[in-house]
Structures are given as structure tokens and as C-alpha cells.
């Protein structure tokens, strides 16, 4: 009997079952493989995403703790000589947890930093509530090496930047200084703060108009003059009168901006643009120019100045009585208060104030310094006030303002505003016309007489043709002016035949008899003798003394 053949459905079922039994291990393998692949893919994808979007954290450069990252540009003089820069410095830090003996550590540090407060250092080293404490900032690389050589546990360093002034005290007041975080505090550092930051971001220096060679000559001569005259302070400024560029400016006592923290308030004060004084007879050339400009006098007029001038109960007199008829030239050359007072009264209060305003003497100086002191310039109400202004009393202004006013002699009667920034050769220079060229030239010739035959003879430098005016302003005490305390000065223009440069030098609080012609004028001569060759001007050499 032929066995009954299985139905097709049964056969198919049976075949499927045998295949399932065979395929199960393979499927499991595929599943494991797939899962493995998936895990690997996920890991790789995660890494790829991390690299793509977050970068490689292991590639980060290992910096120390950042303190402050504000960038300030270098400051250079007109010839590119470095005046201020930012260098790498270090902050001394400590991890109190790791400091072994706070007392011994503080004592070791005090040997390198003698001014370090030892008790305070011990307290900070023992303060375990902080993970990291800062002990001292602005360390030089040498100081860091010295600390490292001690091998102190728990002591470390953080990197920072520090502002330094490689010329030391040279132009210290003009440059100013910054604090340890490089925030500007004084001088052009503050006056030009935005510009210095912008220039720093652009990687270029800020170029000042000063010249370190002239600056040094001016500072050393001012220092010598101030010490010789026993002055309490002193100021000097040298301008290119054509452009208004300040070639040098000095305040005394000197200030080293690298060590400003230890400087006295007197040393920190900028005397050129931050201190006002009654300027005395250095204003007389302007009084004469006003009278000439308004046609209230002429070069041919002669004055009788032999008698004191009594005005509203006040007697105006001259230090040296002028006998016989005196010309405008004599008034300047012999510094006559009587002559200047008479001319001022002719000009009158309104015109006088208008001229003073155009001379820039009623506004703060324009130098780009942190502090620009506004003048003390009350309106002249009485004839006595007007006369006093004629010879330099009743108006207190800065040396920078007066030097700016004297630029009229280098510009045919027009004034330019002084600046500390170097100007490009094709830069537009704004000039304010004050006097006509003829009047300016006439007064300039009188100022030359001051130096050749008058009170300013000590300022004469053979070959250089200096013109100028001395000033000796008595200082106001409690109620009265004192002859024992003077503001002695000399304002000059040179060379007189082609006037271009302006110099003003003043010594404050000089004693009796220390007139501008005796103490300031010689200092100007010594300065000019040194700087004239730097300006391409020829001076006749002095004969050696035997």
C-alpha cells in the first residue's frame, strides 16, 4: 500500500519549521552585529559631533589664570622712541590648603618683597576658606624667579600684564600712569584713553609730538633751575608754534610713573596744564599788541613813566624807575607796569576780555592730558582791575595756555591750539586770528629788545635770536601780595627773524629778588643752547672759560 502522501500545507509547514531552526543562530549573530555596529556608530557620531561643534578640549593651550585682558597701545615719541608699553608680569598667588608653615613662608617672601605686610600675608596664607589667594601683583620675571628659587609649597603665579614706562621719570607727568589693572589714572594715559585702546586693538602705537632728547634737556635744566632758586614747583613747555605740537613739557618735582604709588601729591601734580598762576609781565606784550591793534597808540608815542601811577587809591609803580620819555619798546624792555597799565586802560575792559579770549587765556588748555585746569578769570569791573590785567594780575592761567597764546608770534598774529599728538605734515591746522601781521611783527621786535637790552638779557643765546618777555608775579598771600614769594618766568619765541618755536619756563614760590630775568631767563638760555641743534638751528659756541 502506498503510503498516503502529506498534504501540501503540511509539507510547507514542515519545511518552514526546519528552516527556522537553521536560521535562528544566524539572526542572533546579525542582531548582535547590528547592535554592536549601532553602539560603535553612536560613539563615533557622538565624538564626531563633539569635535565638530565643541572642538578638542585637549587642544586648549594651558594658560594660567587670566587676570585682565585689556590691551593698551604703546606710546612713542615723535621719532618712535618707546615711552610706555605693556609687558608680561606675574601675580603671586597661594593655595592656603597646601601652604605648610604660613609664618615661615611669609618671612621668606618678605625677604624678596621687603615692603610686604608680613602679618597680613600670614593671615592670608592661613585663610583656608579660600581656595586661592592673591598676595602681590605686577611681579617682574626676575622677582618670579627669585620666589621660585625658594621652593615654597603652595605658592604659585598667575600671568598678567603690566604697564611700564622705560624712560623712567622722563615725561612722567605728560605720560601719566595706570593702575595694576591698566585702568588709566593720569596724563595722556587718561586723556587719550580711548585712542590708546583703539590703537592697541589695531596693533599700532600712539605717537606723541614730544621728542625725548628735547624733553630730557628741558627737564634737567628745569630741575637745576628749580633747585637753585629754591622753588616749590616749576613748569616748562616747548612748542612748535606753527603747528601747535608740544615738543617737550616738564613739571617739577619730577614723577616716575613706574612708582607713582609712592610719589607725593606735589610730585604727582602736573604743573603745565594742571596748575594756574597769575602770570605777571609775560602778558605785557599782548597789552601792547591790543593797544596797537586798536590804534590807541603807535610806535612813535612817548610816555612819561617817571612817576608812580595812582589809580583809585592804588599806586602802580615800576621796580626800576624809568626817567625820561619812554617808547613802547622801553615799556616792554624795562617791563614797565605803569606803561602797561596806561595802555590797558585805553583798551578798556570789553576789548581786553575779547582779546584774552581769542588768545585762549580764558579757557582750559587744550593739551590731551587728564587734567586741564580752567583759568581763574573774573571780569574786570574797575579801572584798577583793567590796569592790573595789563601787566598780568587778575588772571590766573596755566603755563600751557600762555604758551598757546605766544604762538601768535609764530603765525603772524594767529593762534594755534597746543597738542600732544604728532600732526601729519599735511594736517589742517586751525588758526585763530588775533592780531594783524604788522602789529605782531612790531611787538616781536620789542620782545627781541627785551632779550638784547632789557630784563631778559640772560635768555640771550648768540646766534639764535631769542625774543621774549620776563615775568615776576608776586604771589597772593592771605590778603596781600608778597614780594618774598614770586612766580618767576620767561616766555620766549625763537628765532626772532623767522619765529617758529615758543618756550615758557616758570619757577613757583621763588624768594625776594628772584625775578624772572634772574632765575627763569638763564634756564631758558641753557635749555635753548642744548636743544637748538636738535631743531636744526645754529648757535654760536661759548668760549671756554679760563
Amino acid at each position, binding site marked *: 500500500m502506498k503510503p498516503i502522501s502529506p498534504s501540501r500545507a503540511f509539507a510547507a509547514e514542515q519545511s518552514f519549521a526546519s528552516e527556522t531552526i537553521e536560521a535562528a543562530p544566524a539572526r542572533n549573530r546579525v542582531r548582535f552585529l547590528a547592535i554592536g*555596529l549601532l553602539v560603535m556608530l553612536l560613539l563615533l557620531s557622538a565624538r*564626531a559631533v563633539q569635535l565638530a561643534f565643541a572642538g578638542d578640549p585637549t587642544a586648549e593651550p594651558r594658560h594660567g589664570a587670566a587676570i585682565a585682558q585689556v590691551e593698551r597701545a604703546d606710546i612713542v615719541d615723535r621719532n618712535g622712541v618707546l615711552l610706555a608699553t605693556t609687558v608680561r608680569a606675574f601675580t603671586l598667588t597661594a593655595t592656603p590648603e597646601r601652604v605648610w608653615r604660613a609664618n615661615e613662608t611669609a618671612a621668606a617672601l618678605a625677604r624678596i618683597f621687603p615692603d610686604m605686610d608680613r602679618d597680613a600675608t600670614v593671615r592670608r596664607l592661613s585663610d583656608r576658606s579660600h581656595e586661592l589667594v592673591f598676595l602681590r601683583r605686577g611681579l617682574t620675571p626676575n622677582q618670579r624667579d627669585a620666589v621660585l628659587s625658594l621652593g615654597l609649597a603652595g605658592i604659585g603665579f598667575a600671568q598678567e600684564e603690566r604697564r611700564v614706562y622705560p624712560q623712567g621719570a622722563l615725561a612722567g607727568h605728560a605720560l601719566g600712569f595706570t593702575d595694576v589693572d591698566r585702568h588709566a589714572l593720569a596724563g595722556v594715559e587718561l586723556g587719550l584713553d580711548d585712542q590708546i585702546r583703539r590703537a592697541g586693538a589695531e596693533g599700532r602705537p600712539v605717537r606723541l609730538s614730544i621728542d*625725548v632728547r628735547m624733553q*630730557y634737556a628741558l627737564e634737567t635744566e628745569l630741575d637745576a633751575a628749580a633747585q637753585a632758586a629754591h622753588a616749590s614747583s616749576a613748569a616748562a613747555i616747548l612748542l612748535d608754534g606753527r603747528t601747535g605740537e608740544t615738543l617737550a613739557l616738564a613739571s617739577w618735582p619730577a614723577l616716575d610713573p613706574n612708582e607713582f604709588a609712592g610719589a607725593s601729591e606735589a610730585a604727582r601734580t602736573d604743573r603745565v596744564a594742571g596748575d594756574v598762576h597769575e602770570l605777571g609781565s609775560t602778558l605785557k606784550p599782548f597789552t601792547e599788541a591790543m593797544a596797537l591793534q586798536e590804534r590807541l597808540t603807535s610806535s612813535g608815542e612817548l610816555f612819561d613813566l617817571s612817576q608812580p601811577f595812582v589809580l583809585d587809591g592804588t599806586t602802580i609803580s615800576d621796580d626800576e624807575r624809568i626817567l625820561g620819555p619812554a617808547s613802547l619798546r622801553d615799556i616792554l624792555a624795562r617791563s614797565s607796569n605803569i606803561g602797561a597799565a596806561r595802555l590797558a586802560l585805553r583798551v578798556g575792559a570789553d576789548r581786553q576780555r575779547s582779546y584774552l579770549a581769542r588768545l585762549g587765556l580764558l579757557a582750559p588748555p587744550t593739551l590731551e592730558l587728564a587734567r586741564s585746569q580752567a583759568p581763574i578769570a573774573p571780569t574786570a569791573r574797575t579801572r584798577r582791575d583793567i590796569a592790573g590785567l595789563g601787566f598780568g594780575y587778575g588772571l590766573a592761567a596755566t603755563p600751557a595756555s600762555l604758551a598757546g597764546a605766544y604762538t601768535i608770534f609764530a603765525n603772524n598774529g594767529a593762534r594755534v591750539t597746543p597738542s600732544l599728538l604728532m600732526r601729519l605734515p599735511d594736517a589742517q591746522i586751525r588758526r585763530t586770528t588775533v592780531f594783524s601781521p604788522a602789529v605782531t611783527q612790531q611787538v616781536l621786535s620789542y620782545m627781541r629788545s627785551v632779550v638784547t637790552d632789557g630784563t631778559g638779557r640772560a635768555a640771550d643765546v648768540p646766534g639764535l635770536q631769542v625774543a621774549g618777555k620776563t615775568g615776576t608775579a608776586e604771589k597772593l598771600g592771605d590778603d596781600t601780595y608778597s614780594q618774598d614769594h614770586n612766580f618767576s618766568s620767561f616766555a620766549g619765541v625763537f628765532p626772532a627773524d623767522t619765529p617758529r618755536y615758543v618756550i615758557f619756563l616758570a619757577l613757583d614760590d621763588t624768594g625776594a629778588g628772584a625775578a624772572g630775568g634772574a632765575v627763569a631767563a638763564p634756564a631758558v638760555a641753557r635749555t635753548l643752547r642744548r636743544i637748538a641743534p636738535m631743531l636744526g638751528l645754529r648757535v654760536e659756541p661759548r668760549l671756554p672759560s679760563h
Partner: protein
Amino acid sequence: MGKAQLIRALQIAAGILVVVLVVGLYKAKSDASKAEAHVRQLHQEISETEASNRALNAEIAHLESPAHVQELAQQHLDVTPGGQSAALPESSMASRLPAPRERQSHP
């Protein structure tokens, strides 16, 4: 070759391709990362060099400062600013010159 085997082969090939691509991407990113790290290191070196240059420039400026030069001039040359040694009239030059050597007479 059956259909199932073909599909399996294709799947394996696709898997290998994906793995190769991913490994390639990883390698590319790793290389880029290394290059980036190298660039950063170079930047840091430049920064270090610039910092050194700035310190050296400051040192040079200090050494060339007029006060320092004057000190050296006084110390080594006995020259003072504004002194007679700095500006001499022509007539006085002879007196400053060293005395001429006497000529040796030859027989």
C-alpha cells in the same frame, strides 16, 4: 546566489561603507583638531615671542634713554651736556687736541 544572500552582502557592504565613512570623518576631524591645536600652540608661541619682544624693547628703550646715555658719557668720556666739551669754537680746537708726537730724526 540567492536573493537573501545578496541582500545580506549588500547590508554588510553598506555597513562597512558607513564604518569607513565614520572612521574617515573621525580621522579628518582628529587631524583638523590636531592642526587646530598646533595653530593654537603657534599662536601661543607668537604671543610669547611678542611678549619677550615687548620686554626687550622696553629694556632697549631704557638703556638708550637720554639719562642713561648721559650717565655713560659722563662716566666713560667725561662729556657733559651743554658743557664746553660739547660745543667748542674752532679756535679752541687746537688746545684740546693731544700734543703732536715728536718726529724721530733719521740719521
